[in-house]
């Protein structure tokens, strides 16, 4: 883990309110793994105050890429930064995905910006063994991942408004897929809104397929010091009732978590 000044090499809009950020992060990239994240300081003033967590979406030599969506004060400021400006970046942080063995097949299920960590994961998987499902609200939200080191990867698309790909929830595609034979060697990797994740977990549980999810939580430190990012664990799995997204995650095996507790939280 390193806290370094990173120069912005690209910060461009790639979909509705969605940006690709490229940073010169030569120190951080050397150990970064898919599923890990960074904490970015947006300003040297005190407002907005906390750093913002973002998954790593890919690495190219000394460049680190992030895909982010403008949702509030912090990401709005991030989107206004120009090439050449520098920001302070702490990373790589957290535990990433357990990358599938070469004999396993991987199904990646992304909901909206949940695609961010999965892009990096996909870069590490043989395209022949990869099935990348991605749901978006609408065609204008779709993120084209082919330029991001995935030129041979075709997204299996779903849009809520039927404007592109299959209409409806991306989890329908997942369910159809799992009905097909050969599912035993599959692992599912997922990231996206909580409602979608719950559906993915329900489906993989039904089919008894291993599922790794990447979660979000409000964070202050990102390194396990503040205990702010706690989430409820499946108590059967771990006797301490909370896990910490920044240190124990952000990637968890789905059975490690207590999915019944995640109702009130917004994602």
């Amino acid at each position, binding site marked *: 883990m390193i*806290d370094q000044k990173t120069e912005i090499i690209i910060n461009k809009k790639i979909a509705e309110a969605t940006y690709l950020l490229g940073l010169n992060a030569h120190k951080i990239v050397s150990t970064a793994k898919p599923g890990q994240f960074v904490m970015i300081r947006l300003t040297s003033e005190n407002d907005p*105050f906390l750093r913002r967590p973002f998954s790593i979406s890919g690495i190219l030599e000394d460049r680190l890429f992030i895909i982010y969506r403008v949702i509030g004060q912090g990401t709005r400021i991030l989107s206004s930064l120009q090439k050449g400006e520098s920001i302070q970046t702490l990373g790589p942080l957290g535990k990433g995905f357990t990358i599938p063995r070469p004999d396993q097949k991987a199904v990646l299920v992304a909901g909206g910006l949940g695609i961010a960590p999965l892009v990096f994961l996909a870069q590490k998987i043989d395209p022949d063994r990869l099935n990348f499902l991605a749901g978006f609200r609408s065609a204008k939200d779709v993120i084209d991942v082919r330029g991001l080191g995935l030129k041979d990867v075709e997204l299996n698309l779903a849009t809520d408004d039927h404007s592109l790909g299959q209409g409806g929830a991306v989890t329908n595609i997942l369910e159809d897929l799992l009905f097909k034979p050969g599912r035993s060697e599959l692992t599912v990797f997922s990231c996206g809104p909580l409602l979608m994740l719950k559906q993915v977990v329900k489906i993989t549980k039904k089919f008894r397929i291993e599922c790794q999810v990447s979660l979000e939580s409000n964070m202050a430190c990102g390194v396990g010091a503040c205990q702010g990012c*706690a989430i409820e664990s499946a108590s059967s799995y771990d006797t301490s009732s909370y896990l910490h997204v920044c240190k124990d995650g952000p990637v968890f095996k789905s059975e490690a978590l207590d999915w019944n507790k995640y109702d009130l939280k917004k994602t």
Partner: protein
Amino acid sequence: MTLKKPDLSVALGPLKLKNPVLTASGTFGYGQEFLDIIDPNILGGIVVKGLSLKPRAGNPPPRIIETPCGMLNSIGLANIGLDAFLQEKLPWLRDLNTNVIVNIYGHSINEYGALASSLKGIKEIAALEVNISCPNVEKGGMAFGTDPDASARVTEEVLKNSDKPVIVKLSPNVTDIRVIAKAVENAGAHAISLINTLTGMAIDIKTRAPKLANVSGGLSGPAIKPVALYLVYQVVRAVNIPVIGGGGIMDYQDALEFLLAGASAIQVGTAIFVNPGAISDIIEGLSTYCKTEGIFEIKTIIGDLKE
């Protein structure tokens, strides 16, 4: 010949610190979490996460909310408990070349005493910081710290059971902090630290629910610095024991304000989350400041406020 450097050492009663910079409890874990970035040995001391007799899971999430120039937390003193602390953390802390201060918290006066006596004899623990000011727990915590008698009784109980310097950490959520400060001084405390967080809340206008599951939380960060500084200024003038000041310190200039107000040492908390490098920047900044201003010993500026 080695060049003479400014002397940053300060004393907290019986405790000697190589420099006045401590980490605030709950913001630096056990010193291990930021190890890749911060060498704890550069510090005057580290105050570890609040420790209770039994492990505490803490409050339900969300536990953290950003606010203008600050943050609210409702961690609820989540910690591994005494046994795990002694087994898992102490061996590592023992080897540090800095003052390890253990922040303790009890549900009852007896629990404070029991914790103190369990830590007796461990010579690598330099001091105890008694947290009577946590706003995020139902029992104990701030309930003690807002009442002078209860504050005094907790202090006495800890002193009775301890062989170490005892620092009592005060709450800012009181009408007159000097009354509490004097009560713990009279009870025998070796030093006072302040401030713990101010109580606050935030509401999500979309869900119309409090943003923190625990409804209220503790406000920290630069937003509270002016309040913290004034309380330190008041306490320094009310008691004759050393005071450790903190609340919203982000850089060495902030640290200097607290030293000038009369704090013998300072605590850096929330700043670490935003900028882990703040710790070393502050220590270096103080050193450079002393050099530039021709201050040979930093202790000479403690309380040197021109009024």
